[in-house]
């Protein structure tokens, strides 16, 4: 079992819809959970991160972490065509030497 599993998509939704992106993981030592957005041929850009379990909201984006189920989600409300990108989940432990483990990314298309 891979440490981080993420459905590669593509996921196509109409503009204005709510988007749900998810990852599962196997390592219970992970404490930090991140979502990166990567536009085509660009570097990943950190959208938001969460420490341990719970929810975090930033504008149209909400991140959820359920450590008991080893499941994390990113919700995008009122999706826009400019949200079309690949979304990478990532996670790590809390130590300085813990590597970030990335998912492969989900390609998202928002249809105008």
């Amino acid at each position, binding site marked *: 079992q891979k440490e*981080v599993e993420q459905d590669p998509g593509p996921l196509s939704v109409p503009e204005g819809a709510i988007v749900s992106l998810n990852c599962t993981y196997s390592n219970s030592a992970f404490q930090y959970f991140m979502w990166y957005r990567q536009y085509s*041929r660009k*570097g*990943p850009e*950190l959208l938001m991160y969460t420490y341990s379990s719970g929810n975090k909201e930033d504008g149209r984006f909400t991140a959820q972490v359920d450590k008991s189920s080893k499941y994390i989600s990113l919700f995008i409300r009122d999706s826009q065509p400019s949200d079309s990108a690949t979304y990478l989940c990532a996670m790590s432990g*809390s130590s*300085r030497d813990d590597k970030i483990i*990335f998912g492969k990314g989900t390609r998202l298309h928002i249809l105008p």
Partner: protein
Amino acid sequence: DAMVIQNPRYQVTQFGKPVTLSCSQTLNHNVMYWYQQKSSQAPKLLFHYYDKDFNNEADTPDNFQSRRPNTSFCFLDIRSPGLGDAAMYLCATSRDDGGWETQYFGPGTRLLVL
């Protein structure tokens, strides 16, 4: 604006011809990372530096080397590129406060090997 800069953005090289990719940062972060990302794959960590303290991942091929002459600059050298080395190469930086810190990525260099 403080940022991570990578040059060149696109690099074409021939099979076996050495190539050097560069990264610079104005964030004054003392940790720097090199990742390799192939199409539809997760970024794969190649190296990282805590200041000048070099850390090599166990599965990074010997064909890849890195240099960090000062805090602001880091280089990735590919001694004899093969077709399988065609990828996006990402540089990232973070602070080092003794615990977990956010990584900030540059725009990447896309390497094509002919």
